[in-house]
Structure formats: structure tokens, C-alpha cells
């Protein structure tokens, strides 16, 4: 085994350029797939965090009596997923709006009548509901007699979900294309090395070397190309992550959204895929070479 590894390392040194190209291609694939995975992971994380803090505003119809609004409050509170319901009268709503507008609050002075409706602020239980289930709950509340409308940022959530899907799809397609391309380049590298050493391979066969003895160093080369390419690519993703996270941290003062790096599992899968690409590339070229 030791001598096989030594032979593989000697071969890599003898074919530095070809091996360098193969490693760079794998690294580029990992960089692209890793970048998409990083963005997708963070968006997903953000969405999961949002699910822990879901609030809805239920606007009541004009002229709703206190009894009706109390009845609505009880009915909403009766839903399994609801944590808390708070009644906000139209007067309270106006003073809250004024407080938010600060200096511009005088703009509201011109209003003769308070245009805001009575409302209920509904807080859902943490983790009890996924974003895609909210629509169903909102629908249930909307059908209550005293309810005018329910608002929970529908459009924003729909766009966010679509964006997430798009990222996952684009990442899978681009990552897939680049992984296939790098597999072919690794295969081509192994083929070029094999052809440059076909006399040596022929001599090895004549002296009684088994196919395994001849092929083993090439597989080790493929494995090392894949692993090195994976490592270099991940390092590039990490560098990009550090850069982006320093930029975002300074921009998002509240620290509301902390960027996180890929999980150990994701890193393991990426390295595993890179090694797999290296080995499959070698297998393909070896199969063709030894068939001829």
C-alpha cells in the first residue's frame, strides 16, 4: 500500500500541470455548488427563525361591538396554534401610529375621523406552524363574522419561498453541471496520463503486474485530486463567507441575521462528492484504456 501511494505521489509530481487543472476544476465546481448551498442554508435558517416569531393582524369590521370583538378573540384563542391574542382599539392604533411617525405625526392631525379599524394582534406558538400553513389559518380567521381582513405579509412570504426554491434549483443545476464537467476533466487527465505512459503500462503487464497493481496509483491520484479540489473549493467558499459576513455584520447593526457557515454534514457531503468525482473520472478513463 505504501509503495502504491508513493507511486501515485510520484505520478502527480511528474504530471503537475494536468493534475493542477483537474484540481482547479473540481475546486471551481465546489465553489459554485458550495456558494449556492451556503446562501440556501442561510435563507432556510432565516425562514426557520421567522417561523418562531409569526404574528398576524386581524382587522375587525367597522361597527363591530365589544361583545363581537370579545367573541372573535375567544374563537381565535381557541385555535391550537395560537399563543396570545391582544385587542388593539382604533384609538390605541392611532396613538401607536403617531408614536412611530414621530416628527411626521402632525400629518395625522388633519384627519377628522380616525380611519383605523379595531384589530386583534395574534401571536402564534413557536414552531407550531410552518410558513406554508399560515394561509390556511388566516383563511379560518377571515371566515369569522366580525373579521374584515387578515394580514401576515403574504406577498413577502410567497416571494421568499419562491426565491428559496429558485436558489435550490439553480444551485442543483449549476452544481450538477460543474460536477459532471469536472468528472469529465478528471477522466481526461487520467486518460492523458495513461496514454503518456502506455509503454510503461505495457511493460508492467508483460512482467506480470495485475490490473489492480497498475490501476491502484491512478485511483489514488483521482482520490487525491478530488479531495484536494474539494478542500480548495471549500476554502474559497469559506473566504467568501468571511468576507460577506464581515460586510453584513457591519450593515445589520441589530445582529438580527447572523450568517452561518456550512454544517459539518454539508462539508462532509461536498468532500465526499469531490472524492467520488475523482474516482468516477478515473474509473471511466481506466475502463476505456484497458478495453483498448
Amino acid at each position, binding site marked *: 500500500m505504501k509503495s502504491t501511494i508513493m507511486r501515485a505521489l510520484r505520478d502527480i509530481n511528474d504530471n503537475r500541470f494536468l493534475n493542477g487543472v483537474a484540481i482547479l476544476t473540481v475546486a471551481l465546481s465546489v465553489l459554485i455548488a458550495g456558494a449556492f448551498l451556503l446562501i440556501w442554508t442561510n435563507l432556510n435558517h432565516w425562514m426557520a427563525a421567522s417561523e418562531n416569531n409569526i404574528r398576524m393582524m386581524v382587522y375587525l369590521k367597522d361597527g363591530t361591538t365589544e361583545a363581537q370583538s370579545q367573541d372573535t378573540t375567544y374563537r381565535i384563542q381557541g385555535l391550537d396554534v395560537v399563543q396570545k391574542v391582544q385587542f388593539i382599539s382604533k384609538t390605541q392604533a392611532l396613538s401607536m401610529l403617531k408614536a412611530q411617525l414621530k416628527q411626521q405625526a402632525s400629518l395625522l392631525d388633519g384627519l377628522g375621523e380616525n380611519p383605523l379599524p379595531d384589530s386583534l394582534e395574534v401571536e402564534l406558538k413557536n414552531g407550531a406552524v410552518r410558513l406554508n400553513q399560515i394561509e390556511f389559518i388566516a383563511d379560518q380567521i377571515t371566515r369569522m363574522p366580525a373579521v374584515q381582513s387578515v394580514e401576515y405579509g403574504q406577498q413577502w412570504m410567497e416571494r421568499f419561498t419562491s426565491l428559496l426554491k429558485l436558489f435550490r434549483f439553480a444551485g442543483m443545476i449549476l452544481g450538477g453541471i460543474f460536477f459532471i464537467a469536472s468528472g469529465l476533466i478528471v477522466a481526461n487527465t487520467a486518460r492523458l496520463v495513461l496514454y503518456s505512459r502506455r509503454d510503461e503500462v505495457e*511493460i508492467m503487464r508483460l512482467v*506480470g503486474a495485475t*490490473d489492480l*497493481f497498475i490501476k491502484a496509483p491512478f485511483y489514488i491520484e483521482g482520490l487525491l485530486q478530488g479531495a484536494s479540489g474539494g478542500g480548495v473549493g471549500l476554502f474559497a467558499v469559506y473566504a467568501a463567507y468571511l468576507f460577506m459576513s464581515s460586510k453584513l455584520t457591519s450593515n445589520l447593526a441589530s445582529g438580527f441575521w447572523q450568517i452561518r457557515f456550512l454544517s459539518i454534514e454539508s462539508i462532509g457531503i461536498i468532500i465526499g462528492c469531490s472524492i467520488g468525482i475523482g474516482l468516477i473520472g478515473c474509473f471511466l478513463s481506466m475502463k476505456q484504456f484497458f478495453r483498448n
Partner: protein
Amino acid sequence: MGEHRSSPIIRMFHVHKSYGIQKSLEDITLDIYRNEFIIVTGPSGAGKSTLLKLLYLGEPVTQGQVIVDGINLSRISRSRIPHLRRNFGIIFQDYKLIPTKTVFNNVALVLEAMGEKRRLIQKKVHSVLRTVGMEHKQEAFPPSLSGGEQQRVAVARAIAGSPRIILADEPTGSLDPDSAGNIMALLKGIHQKGVTVILATHDRMLIENAGGRILHLVQGQLSENIEDGQVINTL
């Protein structure tokens, strides 16, 4: 017939070999016994190299049977071919040394392929390089050696795995008379240690001085089978 004839190490029965419509060997039937020194001779294109190639499965036979040490080559599985080849030490006219490996590593390759341990490889390689007089050049690369030296390294590689049969295909074809004499002396020495030697050559000087049995091929057919000057089989 001598007493050594009791056990043939190679048997060929009605062997034919063609490349497309071109016939290279026709109806060859012969036995080669353990520790024989065989010279396969004949003009260029007579089929000498092809006959040797059939023995180590460098080429498959078109028709007929070849048996090496009891193994029928037409029934051998692909995975057993490397093991079959370890019965042979093969010497080529163009040496077939790996130019990017040192003399030591070229010879060691045979033993590495057999899965021998590093320490045994070191010992054995030094021993065979000493036998062929190339111990002092073990760190040299083949392109820096003369033709005669390269062929001595090839002989060392051929005997490193202690094969039972040496196949030498025109081993002196590219050498000056002195170097050719050295190679022949080495082959004779190997034969005296009990190894079967099959030498393909059309060098008349070598044939006259070699002794042993002569198989004469003409246009792919065995025209004469001569032992000690006596024809024992003709067309």
C-alpha cells in the same frame, strides 16, 4: 531422446495464428522440455516473435492449443494472465526499459508486481544486478546507458522474479558483437541454473555457438527441428 524429456513445460498442438487474412504461423506442433535451450530461427517474418508471443499470451492463438506448465492458455481467465506471465522472463530486442525509472527501479518493478516485501526486493535486485555486472549503475536511467548495458539490465529484470522460462526475442539484434557475446554468456549461465531458455534469433553466429535444439521456421511453418546437428522433424 534424453531423460529430461519426461516432462514438457510447453506443448503446442496444431497451432495457427493469423492477422486478418495474413497467416503468421501454420500448424505448429511441438514440445519443449524443462531446462532445454531452444533456438527459434528463420528469416524475418517467419513467425519467430509471434511464436514467443503466443506463449505469454501477448497474442491469442487463432486455432490450436498451447499448454504452459500444465495450463491450457485457451482456457485461462483474464485475471490469471499476470500469474501466467510470472513464469516467464522476457527479453526484447528494444530492451523495453522504462526510461523514467532508474536501473534499480526497472528491475524492482517485477518483484513489486509480484507483491514482494521491500527488503527482499532490495536484496534480490542487488543480487541480479551483480549477476549481469550492472550493480554499479543501479541509480542510472536507461537512456544514459549503452545498448549492451540496457540489455544486461533487461536480462536482470527477466531473471529477477526467478522464472522457469526465459523468452529472448532477438536479444542481440541491436548490439555489437562483444555485447552480443556477453548477453549470450548470461543466457547460457541462466540455462545452466536449470531455467528453460527459448531464444528467437536469425544471427547465424549465435546459432552456431549456442548449442541446444533449433526450431527452424519458414513462412510460419516449422521446417526443421534439429538437435545436436540431427534433424528430428521436418515438413
